[in-house]
């Protein structure tokens, strides 16, 4: 009872009763601590209600995670708060002041900065130039003062304990460092609220730890972070509060410690998901794909492995270990310079994706936007493009009824959320785009599937579906090579796990003997 009364007066945090610490979330909503308040936001796009009366509060010095399935409205809400998209109704208050958010610039000047999932840095410019672009310090002659520029950048990076050379060219830096630069850039505007859209989706475990250290540093400085993620494992580690959205509606806000993983998933999906990782009991068949001594300097060297029908071979490793390049070499995108490949026991030369396709291979690439989606085209064209070399064409003409039927079936089977097959793929959410790309390859009826980060940036519901799909394809006899930077996915899905470090295979583990520590030990070597 005492606890309840204390909460009502709003100063629970000044009481030192241990029982009250778990009330932190509620007590913290006292007006002085509340930084951001979003009230009754609604937004609809032609034909879709993206957000329906959503309210939310974020306190100073906390990380507030926003989760939900693809298309739940997370990104739209973020964009409204960041001034990128106008709301139809509702208001956004920062530190008790209602904001006018017509442009991203206004949001930035009010103290709200957003770090997009796709980073927006200029690769050919230096770290310092990227951070201060448009606000470069001038010297006495009105020219950019590079000395002052670098001094400021160094001070900023030191404050965040980020170890990056201000003069380095962004092009030469790994994704994790670029993320840090985006954060530094956001903070250079003296932002109070940082919005991060899936910051860890492209990071390895190691880089993620570094990012979290910086986020904790920001918290201690009293800043707040609004954090979108699909990785539920991160929540307990980094988030102070979780808000769940589903189908554009507010479902609830809770502390992560009050929820089990299953409860979170139920809130997000609105239904029970039977199991996260499907374990189809299969006995792997004959060797379908074998490689020996594959080398493409400087990316990878002397890679040998065997992949059996019905088997899922997980490929783990840090970013830069050469896993994606190995996949590209196998599929003929950038063929290996040395080494041999056998399919079904016969030696083959796969020197282009055309040959790879003809040999029954399929390759889901790592980067949806760069090498996956045909962004100016519609869902149907994106689904059908890889089979047109072989099927659904008579005398050069598309058999449009047959194509439409096959694509509609595939789209239904993968539960792609789209108003129609004629919808431009650019209008779909990331997870639905990924489903379309998977559908593109399934239409080719592949016998060997190479998947590079198949569930990156995808919500938990879609993820489970894709996992089940992969497991079922393997059970039906497909050989699957799956690259993933998410260890739970690797551990949960693979029959065997091949670990790479600096372009070499450092070990192959059976599922039964593998765990995170063993994999990380081999990956870091």
């Amino acid at each position: 009872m005492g606890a309840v009364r204390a909460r009502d007066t709003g100063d629970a945090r000044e009481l030192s009763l241990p029982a009250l610490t778990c009330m932190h979330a509620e007590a913290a909503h006292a007006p002085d601590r509340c930084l951001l308040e979003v009230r009754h936001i609604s937004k609809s796009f032609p034909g879709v209600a993206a957000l329906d009366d959503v309210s939310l509060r974020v306190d100073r010095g906390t990380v507030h995670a926003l989760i939900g399935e693809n298309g739940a409205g997370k990104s739209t809400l973020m964009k409204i708060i960041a001034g990128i998209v106008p709301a139809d109704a509702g208001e956004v208050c920062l530190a008790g002041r209602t904001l006018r958010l017509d442009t991203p610039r206004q949001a930035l000047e009010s103290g709200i900065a957003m770090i997009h999932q796709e980073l927006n840095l200029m690769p050919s410019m230096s770290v310092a130039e990227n951070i201060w672009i448009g606000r470069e310090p001038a010297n006495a002659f009105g020219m950019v003062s590079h000395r002052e520029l670098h001094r400021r950048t160094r001070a900023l990076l030191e404050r965040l304990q980020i170890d990056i050379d201000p003069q380095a060219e962004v092009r030469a830096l790994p994704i994790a460092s670029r993320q840090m630069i985006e954060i530094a850039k956001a903070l250079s505007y003296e932002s109070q609220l940082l919005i991060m859209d899936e910051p860890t989706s492209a990071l390895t475990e190691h880089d993620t730890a570094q990012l979290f250290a910086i986020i904790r540093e920001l918290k201690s400085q009293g800043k707040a972070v609004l954090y979108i993620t699909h990785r539920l494992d991160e929540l307990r580690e980094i988030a102070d509060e979780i808000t769940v959205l589903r189908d554009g509606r507010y479902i609830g806000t809770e502390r992560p410690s009050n929820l089990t993983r299953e409860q979170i998933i139920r809130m997000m999906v609105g239904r029970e998901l039977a199991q996260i990782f499907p374990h189809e009991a299969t006995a792997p068949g004959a060797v379908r794909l074998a490689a020996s001594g594959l080398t493409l300097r400087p990316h990878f060297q002397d890679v040998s492995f065997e992949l059996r029908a019905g088997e899922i071979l997980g490929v783990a490793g840090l970013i830069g270990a050469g896993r994606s390049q190995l996949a590209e070499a196998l599929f003929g995108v950038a063929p290996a310079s040395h080494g041999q490949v056998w399919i079904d026991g016969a030696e083959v030369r796969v020197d282009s994706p055309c040959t790879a396709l003809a040999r029954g291979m399929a390759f889901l690439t790592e980067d949806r936007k760069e090498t996956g989606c045909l962004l100016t085209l519609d869902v149907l064209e994106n689904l059908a493009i890889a089979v047109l070399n072989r099927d659904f064409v008579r005398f050069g003409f598309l058999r449009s009824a047959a194509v439409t039927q096959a694509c509609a079936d595939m789209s239904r089977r993968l539960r792609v959320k789209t108003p129609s097959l004629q919808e431009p793929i650019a209008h779909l959410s990331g997870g639905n785009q990924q489903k379309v790309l998977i559908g593109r390859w399934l239409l080719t009826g592949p016998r060997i599937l190479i998947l590079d980060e198949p569930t990156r940036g995808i919500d938990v519901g879609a993820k489970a579906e894709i996992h089940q799909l992969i497991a079922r394809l393997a059970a039906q006899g497909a050989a699957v090579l799956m690259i993933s930077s998410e260890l739970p996915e690797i551990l949960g899905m693979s029959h065997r796990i091949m670990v790479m470090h600096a372009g070499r295979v450092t070990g192959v583990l059976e599922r039964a003997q593998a765990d995170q520590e063993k994999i990380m030990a081999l990956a870091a070597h």
Partner: protein
Amino acid sequence: MPQAVMQQSFPSPAARRTRRWPPEASILLVLLGLALLFELLGWVFVRQSFLLNEQRLVIMILQVSVIGIIAIGVTQVIITGGIDLSSGSVVALTAMVAASLAQSADAVHPVYPSLIELPVIVPIAAGLAVGAAAGLLNGTLIARTSIPPFIATLGVMVSARGLAKWYTRGQPVSLLTDGYANIGSGAAPVVIFLATALLFHIALRYTRYGKFTYAIGSNPQAARVSGINVPRHLLAVYTIAGVLSGLAGIVTSARAESGQAGMGMMYELDAIAAAVIGGASLSGGVGRITGTVIGTLILGVVTSGFTFLRIDAYYQEIVKGGIIVAAVIADQYRRKARDPRAIS
């Protein structure tokens, strides 16, 4: 349980189809607006009707038919994300070669004294072959080396013009057979233009060739990973553009009843303008033949409208430049309005 999840009832994506205006609708409105504007100005300033004059309309389309034929090829090149600057020069080169094989017995100093009064199929085949060769060269340079299309076709543009002048040491080729001249007489160029447009409209929308063309322009990396032989396809697209430039050269020389090395000057820019006004995007993956046809007609209306109002040609060029830029700006606004989510 997994099965149950996958088979949950879900509306068929094909079932719910939203009715949308085709992207050409707005360009068509511009065309009609311009025509009505000239109609109005006509009554005010020269007391004549602009549109109710059959002869003027025929001449108007006739004038732009050649540009239109080129623009159909250029549109396809632009859809792949490329550009073709060589079309105008290829028009000149084909005009010269085709005309030299179409000379009549009346010719005083025929280019090939032994090759006069040939059946009309010979100069046509030769002209198309020259166009194809130029296109093949463009395509080879672009697909097999990594030089940008702008540079490759710029080189071919300069060389082909030189070749056209060298062919007869700058002398025009005249006195052509009646059979050949027929290709350019009456409404024949208009018929050729519209037939070509129809052919490639179908090719782009209903064939594998068309789908691959859009896919390459939309995302060449993804197209390649999807098993499309990108170099081979680009070779085909540039060759087709070359053949169409060749066809335009044949029509031009037949209409003028002579071949001249100065023919087709700046036609490549008019053709690119027609495609862009018609909605083709220079960043690739977007564009339609119907739009290009309307874009061509807009150029025709402007040209003939200015002549009709007896305004100097200088002003005509100034306005044409403005229309091209306006078309691209309008297109960008349309795209934003269509997709608010694509802004970020």
